[in-house]
């Protein structure tokens, strides 16, 4: 197991290196510099700013400097927020996004698994059609449609929640549902398919022949195998949640990483954009590794290969 983890880490290093290199040169290839947008800057101030951020050095020297900083975990200063480093901005915003992501994933897993299992136990009945019909609907509705609609219904019309913000516990509800809805639907479909597949296996018949209750058949014999596909979906789901949080944080004006990233994009705050991309890449790689470990733990056949 340790070897497996070590191997994945070693694999991740060149990936991150390439990601960092590409983002760096993309940034350099951009027409215009980060200080062009501020109309009031005189050439002297601009030169001074560029010197301060090391932008007057040759590009390759800048690249080496940047990579050297990266090795020390330093993502550089923000171009937009003077006096702030990118790392500080990330550290401030990430916990909010993490919280949102966790709620959304928990919501998706809970509702999706329950709906999928219920549907799989009585296929082609109303217990199947209703949750699966809703799931199909959920898959086709993007967050930027459901989010505003949820606000329209539950915040504006019914007045149960605030339309935006992240100050009260109740502010977590609508964003988490908006972000988690697609994954709820997808997980429900995967669970149903996985459970149906497992429930038709010979070993389920063996379990029934042993006199196992229906509860035991589902809980002890089917769930493990039936949920493998859900677990392998968690990898892509995590990337998706990260991307989705861009939209959800924008809609609900949540001070998380996604919103910072979008703002940084508008403000051409290149170091911030790059830092966020790199941070997300590391995050996703680590979380994917975690998912792989869970998968191996669930499936004994993989454990020995």
């Amino acid at each position, binding site marked *: 197991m340790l070897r497996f983890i070590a191997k994945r880490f070693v694999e991740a290093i060149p990936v991150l290196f390439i990601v960092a290199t590409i983002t760096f040169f993309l940034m350099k290839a951009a027409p215009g510099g980060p200080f062009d947008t501020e109309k009031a800057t005189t050439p002297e101030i601009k030169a001074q700013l560029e010197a301060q951020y090391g932008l007057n050095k040759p590009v390759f020297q800048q690249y080496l400097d940047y990579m050297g900083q990266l090795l020390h975990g330093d993502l550089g200063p923000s171009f937009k927020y003077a006096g702030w480093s990118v790392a500080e901005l990330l550290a401030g915003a990430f916990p909010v996004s993490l919280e949102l992501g966790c709620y959304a994933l928990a919501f998706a897993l809970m509702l999706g698994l329950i709906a999928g299992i219920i549907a799989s136990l009585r296929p082609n009945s109303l217990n199947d059609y209703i949750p699966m019909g809703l799931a199909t609907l959920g898959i086709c509705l993007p967050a930027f449609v459901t989010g505003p609609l949820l606000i329209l219904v539950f915040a504006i019309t019914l007045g149960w929640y605030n339309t935006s913000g992240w100050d009260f516990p109740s502010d977590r509800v609508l964003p988490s549902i908006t972000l988690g809805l697609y994954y709820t639907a997808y997980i429900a479909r995967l669970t149903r398919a996985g459970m149906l597949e497992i429930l038709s296996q010979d070993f389920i018949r063996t379990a029934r022949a042993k006199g196992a209750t229906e509860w035991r058949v589902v809980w002890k014999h089917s769930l493990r195998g039936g949920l493998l596909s859900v677990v392998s979906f968690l990898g892509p789901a995590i990337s998706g949640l990260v991307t989705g949080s861009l939209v959800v944080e924008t809609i609900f004006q949540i001070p998380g990483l996604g919103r910072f990233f979008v703002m940084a994009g508008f403000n051409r705050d290149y170091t911030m954009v790059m830092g966020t*991309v790199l941070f997300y890449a590391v995050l996703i790689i680590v979380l994917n590794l975690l998912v792989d470990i869970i998968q191996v733990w669930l499936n004994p056949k993989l454990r020995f290969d």
Partner: protein
Amino acid sequence: MTAAPQPATLRPTDEIEAGHSLWQDAWHRLRKNKMAVLGGIFIILLTIASFVTPLVASDYYKHQNLDLGATPPSHAHWFGTDQLGRDLLARVLYGGCISLSVGIAATVVSVVIGVLYGTISGYIGGRLDVIMMRAVDILYSLPFVMFVILLMVIFGRNIILLFMAIGAVEWLDMARIVRGQVQSLKKQEFIEAALALGLRKRRIILRHMIPNVLGIVIIYSTLIVPSVMLLESFLSFLGFGVQPPMSSWGTLINEGAKSMEECPWLLIFPGLFFSASLFSLNFLGDGLRDALDVRASKD
């Protein structure tokens, strides 16, 4: 499992099925799939409406009527008007034209990349295949959309770049599927025969492989279109995609979301059209896949 009887094997051999081509069979099955047919009809109608409207009334969607302002749906304006007095129906149809165009163009880009990549990987095989597929795996796990945003930020928000960027993101599935198909084709006899005849590899790829993976490519292309449209609208919603005065469904939804308290119809109609299109395309794609799927063609 011996418990379930297998009627297919018990059926007397005197019933010989009438010969149908795979495509006839598929068409027949597709027609039986009501949701797919409905989806197809909706998409065709929408496409016609979206592409004809800008032709017959090229300026109408941006025709402003500031005196009118935002009005709810009425006889004169079925979907109402926005703050500038522009007719929302016209704007939605025009937005559909943009969204569908981006959807199709970016799909073409991604299909070209995916098919080439998958064919090469699957055909050459060996170490190259391992490396190429590992690369796909890694790319899968990266926050790709962020790169697209990065690209759009750095190189300006230009619609051609948008096609290319989205296409560059969505080719991964296609590459995997094509590779699988090519690998199984490679083992088949007519390819071996072609090799034995001394055809060049390039020629085998162009003349034998690509035509044979075409069916599966078409099916998955129909499934790429909705995900491309989703990505485009996602970017437009965030403000990185289609720029004013052009408007796609994403930008319309964004504008609608900003003013939904006063004029909810500005959100509801674009959202409805967008979701219905995604719905229809997904059902159509799934229907096509089920209808053409070789694995299920003899049940």
